[in-house]
């Protein structure tokens, strides 16, 4: 069993309104040393398969088919082996 930890962010070239709003908020709260705030999605999915390679392939497939929209989003993920 694997837990896929998937991070999804808008492509760098795409406007990230949330990120901008939060960056402004942080600055006005006095955190003037922050920048490049980006806000996206975080997903955890547990996959029952013995084999890491199979798990990786499946995550990629699920990301392109359902979990993300490649048109505007990029994703990265890591696999953590977990107990059933």
């Amino acid at each position: 069993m694997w837990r896929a930890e998937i991070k999804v962010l808008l492509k760098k070239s795409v406007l990230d309104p949330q990120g901008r709003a939060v960056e402004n908020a942080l600055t006005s709260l006095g955190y003037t040393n922050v920048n490049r705030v980006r806000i996206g999605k975080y997903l955890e999915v547990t996959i029952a398969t013995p084999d890491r390679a199979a798990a990786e392939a499946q995550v990629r497939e699920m990301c392109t088919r359902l979990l993300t929209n490649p048109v505007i989003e990029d994703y990265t993920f890591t696999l953590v082996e977990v107990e059933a």
Partner: protein
Amino acid sequence: MKPEDWRRIGLRDNEYEMILNILGREPNQVELGMFGVMWSEHCSYKHSKAVLKTFPTTGPRVLQGPGENAGIVAIGDGLAVCFKIESHNHPSAIEPYQGAATGVGGIIRDIFTMGARPIAILDSLRFGTLDDPRVRYLFSGVVGGIAGYGNCIGIPTVGGEVYFDPCYQGNPLVCVMCVGLLETEKIRLGKATGAGNLVILAGARTGRDGMHGASFASEELSEASAEKRPAVQVGDPFMEKLLLEACLELIDGGDLVGIQDLGAAGLTCAVAEMASRGGTGMEIELAKVPCREEGMTPYEIMIAESQERMLMVVTPEKEAKVHAVFQRWGLTSTTIGRVTDDGLLRIKMHGQVVAEVPARSLAEDSPVYYPASSKPAYLERTAELNLAEIPQPADFNTVLLQLLATPNLASKEGVWQQYDYMVRTSTVVRPGSDAAVLRIRGTQKALALTADCNARYVYLDPYVGGQIAVAEAARNVVCSGGEPLAITDCLCFGNPEKPEIYWQFRQAVEGISAACRSLETPVTGGNVSFYNETKGEAIYPTPVIGMVGLLSDVTKACTLSFKAEDDLIVLLGESFEELGGSEYLAVIHGRVQGKPPALDLAKEKALHRVVLAAIGQGLVRSAHDLAEGGLAVAVAECLFEHGIGARLTLSTNGLRPDSLLFGESQSRVVLSLPAESLPALRELAVREGVPLTEIGRAGGDRFQIYVDGVPRVDLPVTELKAAWQEAIQC
């Protein structure tokens, strides 16, 4: 310049020749890019201009016809209504949520650019069939995007339509209409006048997103367009809300000479149109344009289509104040140039000229094409409908239940309950009736709004179909108690370079024009979307009509629901043997065939006079037009809100029972009224020569239809309602 340079950005060889003649020299990359986006179909209307000129566009109430960002009609009390519809089909096909959201953002900017306060949104949507998971994804994404943007910015989405047909499988249609209110003397135009005046850019920073959106929207959707994906962008409704408030405050204070939103073709289009309309030129310093990304080139800055940006022309005295207002609203605004009197757009980067072209040449001198047109072959096939081949249904109960449960007729509540249709507390008639009605604060008046098109009719006969689209919109407005004022149109068609498509286009426009003339509803603006094809297959010709109507007394607003037991049910208008193009034929018999029902515009107009008088004199408690599904479906729809049943006793008078119950003959309305009102109503009908038939009574909890004494339909209202309500999950 090599041919691939201009072809790559969608310019044809002859168009490049024109550019050479205009400039008297070779354009540089930046200039070529500017011509590329401005002369795209989307911005230049090069294939439709000539035909659009034939629309009736004038009338006693029209203050602003086509040509500006939106049309405006006067409604008295020194007030006017500003409205426009626009499509965002191609972006929505690729990123449904953001595609639809930015479509909403764009049309809202068109309205407040004119100085109007946006008060309502309508959405007209078309998708493939819901058995396809991709279609369900597009459907929920588009609805989510419209909700996400409209709800956030606080403009109620009060009406619209949703249709499903295989012809839209790969190419959904997403048309959004926005309606605004303004004081007549506050109208602002997208004009740059007064040499020496300053040019201010406000709102979002410019990024690389939306590159070539304009030329992208002008191509058939192909596998290739997947590569152009960056053309889709993310909307920022919060930014637009601030922009809206700031701009209206400035317009209110009379601080602006001219104002224009940045949409397709971005900065290029805004500066070109403003200067061209004002007969002036502009000098712009691109280094001053706030950019979201490092190292953007002049080319990119000029054609980027980043959302939520506005361009303004102000006198030097006002400059400081204008910047101050934007700052209070937390927005960036920058003076990026000045108006000149030489008619040239002089674009500089760090003081160095990177482009210099006549403003007019971009905005006005684009090529005009008169494509060949020829009657489509398919019409031969579809025209011949032999009713003898169509068996009468054995069981009308099942047919009625089936029809109510077909996605095209079923309740769209699953859609509009996701929209905030009440914000601004002026929505008097909510989604679910015919036209929506919004009161106008500070007056006794109200507006009736609707968006309509039966594309199957247009497919089967573009001329008649075009007429019917206008007539049905007007009928919806009238049934809500409104006097039709004017329309805006969103003409969605296939590839105009195909003669059969262009024929559809010309016929539909002629039909719309004819209807607008007789119903006295001029065209005040609109939008053309060509190249709606996938793998060479065109959608049905789909000219969506957005209509605005006026009620002089908001308390007279009428809905379609039966409201009292024992009320009489009356049918205005005449029923013919017309099953062609009907939903019944398509759903029950699997045929898209025949001619659409005939339309007599004089009879239509007479019907409107009767219904408006009846509502105005308070004779009736409900009014509903007959559309898809015919008489049986229309009456069923009147039962659902209050769960009041009805008993109809009809006679065929030589018609087939199925034509009588499900045929879609035009110019018909069903009314409910207390018995004592009947004589007065009959008098109105007789005076206008409109056939009036008493067809039954409201009451009980069942829907029963007797045809020539034979019980044909007998079902509990609850069962009918369930079928109708649960069909569409969104």
